[in-house]
């Protein structure tokens, strides 16, 4: 594990009878931007807090830079945290907040001054030294909180939903800034969020969590294009998920029989008769007047939603299930109530073993 800076091995966390993190194994690579993504209560924040030392693991090993840290107090660990609600010290100025870490390590005053100035410049907060946190906006507080953590030159920066309290526009802007900052400094970022779009924007790798388990850990693109279970397919981006049974297999091309007709997909490791689901992204789904390429699923156009850049079209299957497809332009040939047949490039759809949702990636 030479390139892993944080290593989590067989870590469990119990709160009373509540098993919040289940036998977790995670290698965080040096210099990467890793996001723990999942709905609330999935154990992502608990995992982060165990790395920081605010929570003790019930069992298992946590290593930072090859050194076991389970027994170490937070103040003995070389990681720093950016908290969800900034947690700036309200009785200290911006300067004193940022200077807090080095002042505890008894760094000479001149050196502290130089580094505080450098950090505030880095987060574009020069000139705010004398302000109190109360006199800052949410975005400014966040920048100070980042500076306060980064001034200690941590090898790993832990960020616990740091942008959650910001409005959408500022959040998007800060996402890009954070990503650039991380690239520039080369520090490992471990980022916790429930916002899949945020995770996609910023991460080198995303670990999708649910119920204390990492379901899939991969690059955003890989997770988007090849979700390994139904939950991931559904949670990351938008997805149309059709349940069915493998009807026939030739090579890696499969025919899947759904309650509404036959569809086709590409995948390996499946057996005829197996109950699976197939995920197809809205941008890959197409409709046509007559059944095409062996697809026989019929749908009725329900309505159109204009999203600005794309137009989403909702379709009803005979089973009542609703599917969506998105395009950049309206199709003049398509109206509400029209009947069409679905098809897509089988290679663009993802067959998923159903039991995969219960198995850790």
């Amino acid at each position: 594990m030479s390139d892993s800076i944080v290593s989590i091995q067989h870590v469990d966390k119990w709160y009373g009878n509540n098993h919040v993190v289940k036998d977790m194994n995670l290698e965080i690579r040096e210099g990467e931007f890793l996001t723990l993504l999942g709905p609330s209560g999935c154990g992502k924040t608990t995992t982060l807090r165990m790395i920081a030392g605010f929570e003790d693991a019930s069992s298992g090993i946590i290593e930072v830079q090859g050194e076991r840290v389970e027994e170490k107090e937070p103040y003995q660990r070389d990681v720093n945290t950016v908290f969800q609600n900034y947690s700036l010290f309200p009785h200290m100025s911006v300067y004193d907040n940022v200077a807090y870490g080095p002042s505890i390590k008894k760094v000479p005053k001149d050196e502290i001054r130089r580094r505080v100035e450098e950090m505030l410049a880095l987060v574009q907060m020069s000139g705010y030294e004398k302000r109190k946190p109360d006199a800052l906006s949410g975005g400014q507080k966040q920048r100070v909180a980042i500076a306060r953590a980064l001034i200690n030159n941590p090898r790993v920066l832990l960020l616990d939903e740091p942008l959650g309290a910001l409005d959408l526009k500022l959040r998007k802007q800060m996402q890009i800034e954070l990503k650039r900052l991380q690239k520039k400094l080369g520090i490992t970022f471990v980022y916790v969020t429930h916002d899949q779009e945020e995770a996609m924007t910023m991460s080198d790798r995303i670990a999708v969590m649910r119920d204390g388990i990492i379901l899939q850990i991969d690059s955003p693109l890989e997770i988007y294009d090849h979700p390994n279970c139904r939950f991931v397919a559904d949670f990351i981006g938008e997805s149309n998920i059709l349940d069915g049974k493998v009807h026939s297999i030739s090579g890696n091309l499969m025919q899947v029989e759904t309650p509404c007709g036959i569809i086709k997909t590409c995948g390996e490791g499946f057996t005829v008769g197996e109950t699976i689901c197939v995920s197809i992204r809205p941008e890959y789904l197409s409709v046509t007047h007559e059944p095409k390429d062996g697809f026989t699923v019929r749908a009725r156009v329900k309505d159109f939603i204009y999203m600005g850049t794309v137009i989403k079209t909702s379709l009803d299957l005979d089973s009542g299930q609703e599917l969506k497809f998105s395009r950049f332009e309206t199709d003049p040939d398509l109206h509400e109530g029209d009947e069409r047949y679905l098809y897509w490039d089988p290679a663009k759809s993802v067959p998923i073993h159903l039991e995969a949702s219960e198995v850790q990636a």
Partner: protein
Amino acid sequence: MSRGTKKASHSRLPMIAQAGPVSLWMILFVTIPMLFIIFISFMTRGTFGGVEYTPTLTSYKTLADVIYLNVILKSLRVAVVTTAVCLLLGYPFAYYIARKPADVASRLIMLLMIPLWTNSLMRLNAWMLLFQTNGPVNKALLALGLVEKPVMFLYTDGLVLLGLITNFLPFAVLPMYSSIEKLQNAMLEASADLGAKPSTTFLRVTLPLTFPGIFSAVILTFIPALGTYTITDMLGGGKVLYIGNIIKNQFGTIRNWPLGAALSVLLLLITALLIFIYSRFASIEDMEVM
């Protein structure tokens, strides 16, 4: 412009309705009596009590007398010790309660408050019974062989101090509790995260952030401890003199109202000074603890 003034007069009515009754009450029953006290402190004492309205500084000159000065200093010293002990005992206790779950905390606060619901005279009488020469405390000490003859607890400075501390401890704990309770755990975590040991976190984060509670505790303990007379009167038996007893005596048996008033004004000044200091700190906020 005219519209602005009209709006202002409009909004004044509900303001008066809200603050008016309390203001009136305060003016009638606090401000006017207080001004009257200040007024008579500059007057001449009547031969048989009361006040003769001839201006004089006699009362204040009397205050400078060594006897009074000593009493004032002693009262201040006792009030300081009471306050200090209440803070030292109260802070850890307040911290302990504040870190408990809300239901446990409210029960502990209840326990703390129960003594305050009993009549203070009854409490003090109970103390006197406990500590009298052949009371349970002395009997226990004798039985344990810790002392050879009964200890004279009553009417000593020690017992007065003990009485003051037990009486004012809840008043010290409550404001500190509310301050500590407001302290977010995330602040302590942030401090630890940045490398601070628990002791450093306490000095640089916990203490400054709970300072308002500490100062409220000081004011709520120090000022009444300085002015109290029931505790000092009963447990001190009038033998040990404190500023509160003297004020009471001047208005009672001795019938020197102007001197009593002058002593009251002195207490008022000390109080005002403390509150002034508090407001300074509260506005500066960024006080350096280390």
